[in-house]
């Protein structure tokens, strides 16, 4: 249940693309320092939900509360200033800028130069692979490296909550593991994360709590291990008969 410690809370949120209702009234919350994952099949409304939280998609009704404030009507660029950073699906890096420029763009809204440099160093130490390629044009990186740049860029805005949309999409299993290592490091440093994943197994293993979405509704909720052991989840999303 939502408490004082809640950083993000959705109350009966509905989202529609024109006539098509994509999300049909969902409630969930994320507490500070938690890694919460949202799993579900294709078309369940996961990405839609994430985009609505980040403000790139308007909601039809309901309420999104972030750090105690109603942000439902706030435009996307102002939500970032409140501490909400999105790593979009398909990574969304700036392909024609260099890796370093991509990372620095994350600090677009900040003007505390020294702190930015410190944060950059922190990101470099977290992502050694990225550090080796700072002067390279980001579009020429591998998928995994691009994903890391995207996460690093989001961290540079010093968010309170990080929204990750399918970080494992299209990546080799080994690379996915690397990405999840990074995510774990970030969580250990006290960041709150809302993770949308199709790779339910991996996501639930690391998540403190999880929600299962199906057809625009949340059908199941529980701790990571509970969901991981739930027979319905196992058969529907973990590929077991």
């Amino acid at each position: 249940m939502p408490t004082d410690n809640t950083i993000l809370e959705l109350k009966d949120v509905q989202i529609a693309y024109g006539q098509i209702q994509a999300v049909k009234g969902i409630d969930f919350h994320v507490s500070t320092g938690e890694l919460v994952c949202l799993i579900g099949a294709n078309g369940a409304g996961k990405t839609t939900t994430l985009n609505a939280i980040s403000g790139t998609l308007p909601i039809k009704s309901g309420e999104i509360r972030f750090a105690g404030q109603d942000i439902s009507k706030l435009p996307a660029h102002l939500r970032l200033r409140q501490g909400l950073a999105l790593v979009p699906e398909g990574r969304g890096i700036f392909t024609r800028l260099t890796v370093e420029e991509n990372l620095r763009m994350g600090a677009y809204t900040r003007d505390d130069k020294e702190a930015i440099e410190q944060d950059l160093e922190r990101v470099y130490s977290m992502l050694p692979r990225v550090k080796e390629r700072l002067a390279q044009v980001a579009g020429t990186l591998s998928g995994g490296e691009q994903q890391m740049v995207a996460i690093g860029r989001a961290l540079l805005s010093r968010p309170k909550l990080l929204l990750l949309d399918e970080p494992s999409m299209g990546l080799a299993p080994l690379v996915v593991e690397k990405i999840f290592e990074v995510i774990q490091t970030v969580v250990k440093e006290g960041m709150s994360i809302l993770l949308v994943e199709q790779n339910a197994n991996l996501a639930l293993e690391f998540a403190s709590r999880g929600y299962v979405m199906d057809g625009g509704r949340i059908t199941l909720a529980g701790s990571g291990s509970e969901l991981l052991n739930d027979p319905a989840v196992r058969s529907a999303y973990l590929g077991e008969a």
Partner: protein
Amino acid sequence: MYELAEAVPWLGSRNPRAARGVVLALMLIAPMIALSAGNTWVRILDFALLYVMLALGLNLVVGFAGLLDLGYIAFYAVGAYTWAFLASPHFGLHLPFWIVLPAGAGFAALAGLILGAPVLRLRGDYLAIVTLGFGEIVRIFMNNLNHPINITNGPQGVNMLDSLSLFGWDISRHIQITDDFKINSLVLFYYVFLLCVVGSVIVIRRLQLSRVGRAWAAIRDDELAAKAIGINVRNMKLLAFSMGATFGGVAGGLFGSFQGFVSPESFSLMESIAILTMVVFGGMGNLGGVILGAIALSLLPELLRSVALPVQQALFGHVILDPEVLRMLLLSLAMIFMMLLRPAGLLPAHARYSRPELAGAGRITE
């Protein structure tokens, strides 16, 4: 400037400072060389500089912010007609240039906002179609606003526009220094235009390095990600349209003063496309490339014209291909060869939107 200097063959990569000197010297003595070939060539150079300004402005929208604009000539028209309305016998107004030119720029910027607002959500093909329509609407308005109230004087256009006078000098007149030495007015216009181009380059360079320039680069590469890192995409797009339009408006005002006459036919769709070709041909997003593209594509057709006519006369006894047809043929061929040989343009844009001097140098780590 850096990009242009780098492009100087052989010298560019060895001694950039000397190369920069060469570029500067060429810019300064160009009208003298042209003058020895006749007034026509100085006039062509003057127009080349106007095209450079237009290409620089369009590059801001297309190259920096990634918004395809096929109606850019409309802003040139707004600038030119502002000059026609405020400094000609048409309305009996003869305001000085320091009012008329900023007014033209301001009206063009406003037109940029008017175009920008409804197309905010459009991208790619859809954006191209709407901007194309906008350009045509402006031209058609100028063509038809002579009835019931005569505002633009219709297809006849407005003539006897005031010339540019600086500190009481009318630069459309030759300056007689001694009996046999005078400064040609076309040369004077060249230097005034050159000054404007240099000013534009400085302003655009600063813009490119600023937060605004970075925001445009981000929007160009990924709009959703740009929003996600806190960029106000709507405002930045509007700013791109209106800033780009401003340069078009200034160029239009200068065009009006230079030509002394404006009519709607100067602002056809083909002109928009010609300017876009210059930007793409030279290298979208790279100031040096854009300048080179504009100069090359405004001089080459003229060179061709001066060669093709006599050659056709000599070979066939009459002219088979009209120079205007040849111009379009040349533009198309230039584009086709460009796509095949150098898809990013003559001078491709650096990855670094800022600090091109650091490109490839990488970051010194430890």
